[in-house]
């Protein structure tokens, strides 16, 4: 059983000050989530129970059925939120099981699962291979990419169709995987909010409101960070940044090539990307 925000190594000692601060923020966020977000469906449930009682007392069968439906829907939503929170709370612990992840291979597999959804959306994904491998938890990293793809499909589409480009960049301190879409973009004032738990900036969009929060948690559990670069009308680039020390030997790149690729790793326009893996 994972305990939210509490993460210690096998000797029972906290890892670093940064890690403790992160845990503290996570606990704070968790408490806020429980007190606000989980209470929200509860208010709906009890509110419509009150209306149900009124409907039953007055013999309003249609009103009663409507209230029951709202109650059922909110109970399901609450259950999904609890599942999501449990999932989120496990990230820190699962992340300790790391291995060399061949990101290019994982993305190819993941994109196969997305083939139908991408085709339905008329979306094209261009993966700028080869991508460096990284020392990370494979399941969590795939989940992070999964959530970013899903997010791009939900929010990134424009009248010109959706183009997603995945590439990388190596800086002096970090290895970045970059997922760029050509969608409507996100105003700077909202950049931090997109990663918050149960935050849905578009009220009409479907989803749990946890996808990007999980991405954020996955990266911080790897001592990395996620950020977004975007402005309205200019698409959005989500950047998964790992510490440079997490670069792992790649099946496709010999060690000295990593730096050569780094020098070549520019970030071309998503709009100019060719049909890649997702177009299959």
């Amino acid at each position, binding site marked *: 059983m994972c305990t939210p925000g509490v993460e210690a190594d096998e000797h029972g000692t906290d890892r670093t000050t940064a890690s403790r601060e992160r845990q503290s923020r996570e606990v704070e966020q968790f408490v806020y989530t429980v007190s*606000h977000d989980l*209470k929200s469906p509860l208010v709906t449930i009890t509110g419509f129970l009150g209306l149900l009682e009124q409907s039953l007392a007055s013999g309003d069968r249609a009103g009663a059925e409507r209230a029951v439906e709202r109650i059922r829907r909110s109970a399901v939503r609450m259950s999904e939120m609890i599942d999501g929170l449990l999932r989120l709370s496990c990230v820190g612990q699962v992340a300790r099981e790391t291995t060399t992840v061949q990101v290019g291979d994982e993305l190819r597999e993941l994109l196969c699962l997305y083939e139908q959804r991408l085709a339905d959306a008329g979306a094209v994904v261009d993966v700028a291979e080869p991508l460096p491998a990284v020392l990370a938890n494979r399941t969590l990293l795939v989940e992070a990419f999964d959530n970013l793809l899903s997010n791009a499909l939900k929010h990134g589409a424009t009248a010109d169709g959706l183009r997603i480009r995945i590439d990388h960049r190596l800086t002096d301190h970090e290895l970045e995987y970059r997922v760029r879409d050509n969608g409507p973009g996100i105003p700077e004032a909202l950049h931090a909010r997109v990663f918050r738990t149960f935050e849905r900036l578009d009220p009409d969009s479907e989803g749990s409101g946890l996808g990007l929060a999980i991405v954020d948690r996955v990266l911080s559990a790897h001592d990395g960070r996620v950020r977004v670069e975007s402005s309205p009308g200019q698409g959005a680039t989500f950047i998964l940044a790992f510490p440079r020390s997490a670069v792992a030997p790649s099946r496709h790149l010999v060690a000295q090539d990593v730096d050569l690729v780094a020098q070549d790793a520019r970030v071309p326009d998503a709009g100019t990307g060719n049909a890649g893996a997702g177009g299959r």
Partner: protein
Amino acid sequence: MHTLRVLLIEDDPDHAELIEHALGRQPLIASIRHLADGTEGVRYLKGEGPYRERELPDVVLLDWKLPGKDGLQVLREIKADDRLAGIPVVVLTTSGSDADVRQAYKSHVNSYLVKPVDYAQFKAMIEEMSHYWGELNRRPGLGAAETT
């Protein structure tokens, strides 16, 4: 008797319905206008875009966690606008977080109410709130005279 025009900014359709249901039973309530996100709420109050002919409300019921502009941003924009600053803003949210309450009061909120889970209390709170702002409280001379 019908004196209170309410602008409700609330993204949760179920909560909006519960609030409207409770408010709608109050004889004091003249009208309820509901908008589901903060950005639209501000546009409405400022009379922008499709809201040029809008009637300013006597009280704003404001959820705290909203898509677009969140409750804090909406509150700040209302209180920073001379035409709007006199309209009482009542935050109505599920968050009882002390940080949120402090931030709201720092930004000149007029009242901060936490939605009770118990429906009888919820209804009673809405009734008392409308009684207070509709009858007991003396409001500045905003409203019908100013619609621009």
